[in-house]
Structure formats: structure tokens, C-alpha cells
């Protein structure tokens, strides 16, 4: 059953992405509910998988790197579903689907997604800390998507010969605003997650602490720079993409250090 739900969600995301690519290629893209619904089914199937894992482990299913990646991709999809309607169901789904799909495929290819014994200690505070951290990463992931869309749309506007995709992308002012909100949302969740971790007297190694704080500090600097007007929207978008890629690269290390 677990494998079936994972496969179903992968197919939904693949379908959403493929449909948009085909529609854009054939110049028949119409912002509509199709991609949104496909993403919603994908997220529902993932949610089902995570609940099955949770029931099997009697804990939040974040005990292994594949589970973390699936939880992260589910978080990104859920946040997209919440804010997607404010983009009038535009191309954001098409940009979110490949990221979610990539994370899920990596999770499927990695060994150890079906632990029978939980790796996390049974402490609801620690589970809350882990879940909040991953949802924060989800918000940063979607900020990365908004940043990519901003850079693409800004490039089209600067080129003065915009390609057809320009007509389907949201205005850069809207994208910049969404980017900032998503960064703030992720940053607040990550801060909350650290506070919960401290409340639970969670012991972390020096390396894990440094990695986690590095991500937190980088996002804090981004937000401070944007707030003080020191970073242009273009630089903010660029740094949001780079910082998320760095955070993603550090995720396996943080996960490994959590168990060591």
C-alpha cells in the first residue's frame, strides 16, 4: 500500500508537469484547474503515505533521508496548494511540480525508506522540531521556485524581445512580494523549530549545530538585506535560489548528524 501511494503521487506530479510542458509546447497553455487538481491528488497520495509510515513507526515519519525528502516535497506541494490560487493558477504549479517530482524520485531511489523501527526518539517535542524544520524547508523550496520565476520573467522583460512564456508568468512585483513572504514564513518556522528543539533539550553535535545555524543565518541576512533596501529584488531572488540549493545539499549531512 505504501508503495502504491508513493507511485500514485509520483504519477500525479509527473502528469501535472507533463501536461503543462505539452500545453506550452503546443502554445495551448490556459491557466486552469487541471494542474492544481493533479498537484492536489499528488499531495493527498503523499499525505496518505506519510500517515501510513507514521502509523507503522508510531512517530512522525522523518526517520530517514528518503522520508525527510518525501516530507519536504509534500510540504512544498501543500504550501503551493495554499498560495497557488493567489497566482490565479498560473505557471507556478509548472515550476513547483518538477521540484517536488525531483525530490520524490531521489527519495524513491535512495535505500531505507521503510524503516520498521523509528530512528527518532519518541519525544513529541523533538518530532515537532523536526517537522517544523522540514516545513520551513518547504517554504524555502517554494521561495526558490518564486525566485526562479522572478529571474526568468525579469530576464524576459530586460531582453525586450520576450518569448511566449512571458505572457504566462505572473508580474515581477507579485513574484517579488511572494518571494519575501515565503522567505519570512520559512524563517519564522525555522526559528520556531529551533526554539522547540531547545525546549526539548535536544542534544545536537557541533557540526549539526553549525550547519543548521548557517542556513538560519543566511536566510536572516537575506531578509535583513531586503528589508533595509540593500538587496535588489533580482539579487534577493538569486540568493533565495542559491541558499535553498545549499540548504538542500546540507540536508543529508544534517540528517546523518542527527543519527550519529
Amino acid at each position, binding site marked *: 500500500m505504501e508503495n502504491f501511494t508513493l507511485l500514485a503521487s509520483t504519477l500525479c506530479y509527473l502528469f501535472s508537469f507533463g501536461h503543462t510542458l505539452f500545453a506550452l509546447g503546443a*502554445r*495551448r497553455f*490556459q491557466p486552469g484547474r487541471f494542474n492544481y487538481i493533479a498537484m492536489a491528488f499528488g499531495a493527498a497520495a503523499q499525505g496518505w503515505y506519510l500517515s501510513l509510515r507514521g502509523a507503522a513507526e508510531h512517530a512522525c515519519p522523518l526517520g530517514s533521508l528518503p522520508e525527510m525528502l518525501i516530507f519536504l516535497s509534500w510540504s512544498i506541494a501543500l504550501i503551493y496548494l495554499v498560495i497557488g490560487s493567489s497566482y490565479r493558477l498560473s505557471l507556478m504549479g509548472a515550476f513547483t511540480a518538477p521540484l517536488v517530482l525531483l525530490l520524490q524520485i531521489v527519495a524513491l531511489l535512495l535505500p531505507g525508506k521503510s524503516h520498521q523501527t523509528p530512528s527518532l526518539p519518541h519525544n513529541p517535542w523533538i518530532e515537532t522540531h523536526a517537522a517544523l524544520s522540514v516545513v520551513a524547508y518547504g517554504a524555502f523550496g517554494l521561495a526558490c521556485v518564486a525566485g526562479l520565476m522572478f529571474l526568468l*520573467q525579469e530576464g524576459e*522583460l*530586460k531582453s*525586450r*524581445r*520576450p518569448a*511566449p512564456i*512571458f*505572457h504566462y*508568468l*505572473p*508580474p*515581477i*512585483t*507579485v513574484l*517579488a512580494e511572494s518571494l519575501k513572504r515565503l522567505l519570512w514564513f520559512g524563517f519564522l518556522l525555522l526559528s520556531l523549530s529551533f526554539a522547540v528543539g531547545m525546549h526539548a533539550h535536544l542534544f545536537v553535535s557541533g557540526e549539526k549545530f553549525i550547519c543548521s545555524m548557517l542556513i538560519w543565518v543566511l536566510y536572516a541576512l537575506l531578509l535583513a538585506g*531586503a528589508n533595509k*533596501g540593500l538587496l*535588489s*529584488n*533580482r*539579487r534577493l531572488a538569486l540568493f533565495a535560489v542559491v541558499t535553498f540549493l545549499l540548504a538542500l545539499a546540507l540536508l543529508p549531512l544534517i540528517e546523518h548528524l542527527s543519527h550519529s
Partner: protein
Amino acid sequence: MNILCAGINHRTAQLNVREQFAVREGEMTDLLARLRGIEGVTGAVMLSTCNRVELYASGLCTLRALEGFRSILSERAGFEAPLYHHDTPQAVRHLFRVASGLDSMVIGETEILGQVKKAYSLASEAGSATRSLHKLFQHAFRVAKRVRTETQITSGPTSIGSVAVELAGKIFGSLAERRVMILGAGEISERTARSLQSRGVRSVIVSNRTYERASALAAEIGGMALHFDHWEKAVADVDILISSTNAPYALLTPEKLTPVLKLRRGRPLFVIDLAVPRDADPAINELDGVFLYDIDSLEQIAAQSLDIRKQEVIRCESLIEEHVDGFLSWLSTIREPHPQA
């Protein structure tokens, strides 16, 4: 049962000829009654827009309907109407093309569909639309909707004003709270500003070397005049700058804009340079948050949109053919009584 289409349009007659045959809404009911009085005509719908005056009639003998229509129009204008005409199935195809915007002066424009709907509604209210005409127009509305949603025939802006509006929309989203500054009171910049105003920009500032000219234009478009000496300070507060002065050198340079951009705290600045020689140094487009478009780049985008629309015509025609076939097979099954019978 046959369908006749006869009329004049922007391809067959100049504006000074077309205006002689234009029919006002108030005259439509009487004219439709006269048309129905022609022997062999069972129903009629008249379409009168700035680009066309057309009759769509159902009946057994289309030749008599055509002659009757010609004589009514010639009587109104005082000279013979240079009519084109089509019988079934070409008349059906023609209406579907008209409703879909394929026969318009600007291919893919959508205003025509509303005008066709209005003409049909007036004929229906006057009791002039027969069963076959009802069916014909319903098909026309369906095909127009499909053409609009399933092809790119309406995609992209096709005039400098509409390109500017689209670009502004892609930079700012809603234009409701945006401020525009016009530098140099030229005709194209005025038209462009009016296009932006039609999309709800909050205020327009006009600055010109001759203050009186700036005041006159500002009064005309409901804006505010500004002395030319002060325009540089005002740039910090505007979102869209339309420039069309006769200055022989670049007014907008990176050196002038860089300090202004710091005051803007990341708000984008859309510069529309309509002047020849150009008012803006192309290097300002490299500045973060500045989007510069000159007359060539605006015209290229308009031409690009028109090209896309032209490429879509073949797809539109095949959709239209599907509906022509559908309508003709329905038409072959009906027998329509003459209203006077």
C-alpha cells in the same frame, strides 16, 4: 433553405463610403421589417459596425434578397452600394470568420463578437431571426469561443499603447496605484498615457520644455503639469516614465538614474522611450529594476503578436470548418415556413 450574406467592409470600401451605409441602433427595427418584406426572405439579421455593414438573411431565393438589400442601402446613401455577397455555405463560413475576429482589421480582435451578439439580440427582439438564423448565430458564438480559447488568435498586444499596457502589467501587476510621467508632450506619448489611464493608473504628470504645452496636455488628460526643470526630482516617485522630447542628447543616463533608484527602495521603473533620437541611454536597461523599451522594441513586440496571430489562422479555419459542416448538416434537415404564409 439558403443563407445569404451581403454587405460592405473595410476591405471593399473606404471609411467615407462605409459611413454612408452605417445603420444606427434606433433604425434597426424598421430596417429589419423592410428586409423581411422582401419576397423570398424569411428572416434577417443586420450587423453594422465601424468596419462593416452586413446582412445575414435566410430564405429560398437569395438573389431577390440581395437585390432588395442593395436597393434599400442605395436609397439610404443616395448611390449604389458596392456590395459583396455569399450564399450557403460561404455565407455561413463568413459569419463564423467574422465572429471569430478573422475578418477584422486587426486579426483576432474580440470586440466584434460583442457586436455580432448585439446584432443577433436586436434581430431576435424584433422577431426577425428565424429558426435557421438562431441556429446559425448560436453556432457562430460557439465557434468564436472555441477559437478564442483553443488557439492563440487573441494573444499579445498589437499596438504601441497596448504593448505598453501589457508590459506595465507584467512589471507592476495592477496599475491602479501607479504614477506616470510624460516627458515631452508628443502625440504618441499622449496616446500611450491614455492607454495606461484606461487601465486605471492613479496619476499622470506632464513635463515639457514649454510649460504652457504641458499644462494644456495635462488639462486634456486630467493630469498635472510640471516645470521641466523639476522632472529629475519627480522621477523618484513615478513608476512609468514616457519620454518623447526633441532633445539632441540622452536625458536619462545611468549617472542620473542611479541616485534616484536608491530612493525608490527596489520599486521597478518602466521607461518608455518614444523619442527619435532616443532620450534614454540604452545602458539604463542594465540597472537593477529599470526596464527600458524604445519605439523599435515596442513595435517589434506588436509585430511579433501579429505574426503569432497570423500563424494561428490555419488552426482557426479548421475549427471553423468543423462548425460549418455541423451547421450545414443540420440545415439540410429543416424546412422553414415563410413568416407571411
